[in-house]
């Protein structure tokens, strides 16, 4: 072997290691425990951040040490496209994009779970024994402490609307929300809210008037709130906001008390899963009381199991907010959110309403 070829090989290996490292940020591989018998592989494709997923995977491996877990965290869009391209790659698919997950199951891509969903599981969080929602994450507002200098912290949508209308100047440019044009999650929320409340469009108009910043992720809003450039973040994913709000003394989390959207992680085992038995076992673990306890105690996701109560459970949240919580419900109504014309109509309306009360060029010159 010549030195030149050796150098080239070393470079190649270095490149491979680097790319593997870069990939490792989004992926996790947990090998099977030594001496636990023949390893059983399990491939999970999920839109669920590693800090939330890790305790679940660890708890699962404690129960099934023979399972070697490969976990890929992807954005909901990547996840969906990757699944359509390779429907036989993953054993479990988890995503918070409920309409997409539903569309896949509706088209017959999901495998029946064989009765692992208990009868006590809420009917609106399951579909056909194929698709099941296993978390309960409210959509929240996050406010910065500085807002109390201007006005009272809004407790619901109506108060937010009033606040935006009355203190527009003070809040201009310091409010942020999802951009439904670029974010699928934002679009889903917009569609839900427009169904829930006729005054939603007034709120969009008020947000437009306050020149709200439109962002693509909850993280961006939290970044702005943490550094004080934003005072109000509207429609943040509660499960992601909660740990950072708790870590930051200036931030406060508000679950609106008139109505609160809820998002849920939805899991299914693909029909062409390479290891369907292990996949089904993992989903069964997610739905089990033990798995749900891990969700309640070690993550900010919100446990859905009716037997799990106390902090971090849907039951506790429901007790506090009574019937203000609006989980979307796993059903074919979700498909309407994916309808091409409906989406176009919604976005057109949203853009129109957002610009309706926006200060025009002359008025800003004032």
């Amino acid at each position: 072997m010549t030195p030149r070829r050796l150098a080239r090989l070393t470079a190649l290996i270095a490149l491979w290691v680097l790319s593997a490292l870069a990939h490792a940020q989004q992926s996790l591989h947990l090998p099977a425990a030594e001496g636990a018998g023949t390893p059983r592989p399990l491939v999970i494709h999920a839109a669920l951040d590693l800090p939330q997923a890790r305790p679940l995977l660890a708890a699962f491996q404690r129960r099934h040490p023979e399972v070697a877990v490969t976990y890929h965290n992807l954005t909901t869009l990547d996840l969906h496209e990757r699944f359509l391209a390779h429907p036989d790659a993953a054993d479990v698919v988890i995503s918070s994009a409920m309409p997409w997950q539903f569309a896949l199951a509706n088209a017959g891509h999901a495998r029946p779970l064989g009765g692992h969903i208990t009868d006590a599981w809420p009917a609106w969080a399951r579909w056909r024994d194929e698709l099941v929602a296993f978390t309960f994450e409210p959509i929240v507002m996050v406010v910065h402490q500085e807002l109390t200098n201007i006005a009272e912290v809004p407790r619901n949508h109506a108060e937010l609307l009033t606040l935006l209308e009355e203190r527009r100047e003070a809040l201009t440019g310091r409010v942020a929300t999802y951009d439904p044009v670029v974010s699928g999650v934002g679009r889903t929320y917009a569609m839900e809210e427009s169904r829930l409340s006729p005054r939603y469009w007034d709120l969009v108009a008020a947000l437009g008037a306050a020149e709200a910043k439109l962002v693509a992720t909850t993280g961006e809003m939290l970044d702005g709130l943490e550094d004080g450039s934003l005072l109000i973040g509207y429609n943040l994913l509660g499960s992601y906001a909660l740990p950072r709000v708790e870590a930051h003394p200036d931030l406060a989390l508000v679950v609106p008390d008139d109505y609160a959207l809820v998002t849920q992680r939805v899991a299914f085992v693909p029909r062409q899963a390479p290891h369907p038995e292990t996949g089904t076992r993992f989903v069964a673990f997610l739905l089990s009381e033990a798995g749900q306890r891990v969700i309640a105690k070690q993550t900010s996701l919100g446990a859905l199991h009716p037997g799990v109560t106390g902090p971090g459970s849907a039951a506790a949240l429901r007790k506090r907010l009574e019937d203000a919580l609006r989980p979307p419900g796993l059903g074919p109504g979700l498909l309407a959110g994916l309808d091409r014309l409906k989406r176009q109509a919604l976005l057109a309306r949203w853009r129109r309403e957002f610009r309706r009360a926006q200060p025009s060029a002359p008025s800003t010159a004032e």
Partner: protein
Amino acid sequence: MRVAHSLYGRLLAWLALPLLSLGALLLLQAGWQAKATADRAHDRLLDAASLAIAEQVQWQDGRLWLDLPPAALEMLAGDAEERVFYSLVDQQGRHITGNAELPAHPGADAESGDTLLYRDLEWQGLALRQGVRRSRLEDWRNRERFEVRVAHTREGRDALRQALLRGNLAGILGMGALAVASLLLAVRAALKPLTRLRHAIRARDPRTLVPLELSLPRELAELREALNELLVRMRRVRANQERFIGDASHQLRTPLAGISARAELALRDTDPEAWRDALTTIQATSERTARLAMQLLSLTRLDNPEYQATHRPLDLNACVRRAVRDHWTSCRQAGVDLGAECAEGEVAVNGTEWQLEEALANLIDNARRYGARRITLATLRSPPRLVVEDDGPGIAPERRLLALRPFHRGRDDGEGSGLGLAIVDGIARTHRARLTLDAGAEGGGLRVELRFAEPSP
């Protein structure tokens, strides 16, 4: 096929066969009806959902526009959580929106404006029920036609169909079981008298011939009557046999007693000449007794219903000639004129030679015994007949039938055995010939005629 050999099985098979085919038909019909009912119930969902979607179709910005109502899809899914598919298609058949490009329906438009078509569909490996609604915009500027195609899986229908079918099936099976059970009982009950009859017959003493006294249904009562008639006939036959045996033993005892007495007398004598006389008498008597025994034997043989004669074609003329040859000498010695008048050529019949010879011998012997001086044997053709005519005293017409019975004698002079005509009658019967007794041609004597059937070619 054991069933075919049993009355019980046969009845059961013939009754159960239509019952089972009826049951199968009912099942088929129930299956078809259950599907129709389930489809009717669930097609309403397709109807309502497609209508809800069609109502939201508008004309906007120069194209079809749909604000899809989520409730329409929820409705389409129903309680069974069906997979749902919808698509909006414009006048040119272009897919405007929807979650699946559902195929078009080949059906034609209805007469009225709004067309709604249903069909079962296999689409991408899924069993679907499709509803296609053809409609047009309710806009005064634009009346463009469009099509709303909706489809859902058939699980709810199948479940409903199966539930309906299960209900029907339980009913039909219950009815069938009841029918078969009552059939079994009915057939068994109907055949019960047969068993009683069998038991009654089996329990009888084989020696009794008294009629069966048993109350039976009409069909079996006929059988009982037939059986009783047979018993009556058997009783008569047995009475005849008993009398025959009595007569026969009596007939044999008389000459034997004579022989015994003659021998006893001769033994007391010492004269060899007397012994010789006695021996001559004894010889004559024993010859006659032997002949009587022979006749009894042949009569018994002829009367045996199991006896199957093996007839062969033979010529009656040959029989007559042989009889004349055999008896001519003895008749001549006794001063009797024995003659024959044969028809020309051959008179062919199916028969047994020795029996016909026996009959002729008996008739000749009879005539001689009753004092005939002239005996004529004759044959006639078409139909073949055998005639023996004599000029003896004859038999009065009212006694002719009696004369055919064994041991009946025209006179009580102890000469004949009384078996001759009975034997001739028996032979006639085995030849299926008709025996007639008549007066002779000149008004006196006896004419015996045996009329045979024409031999089959």
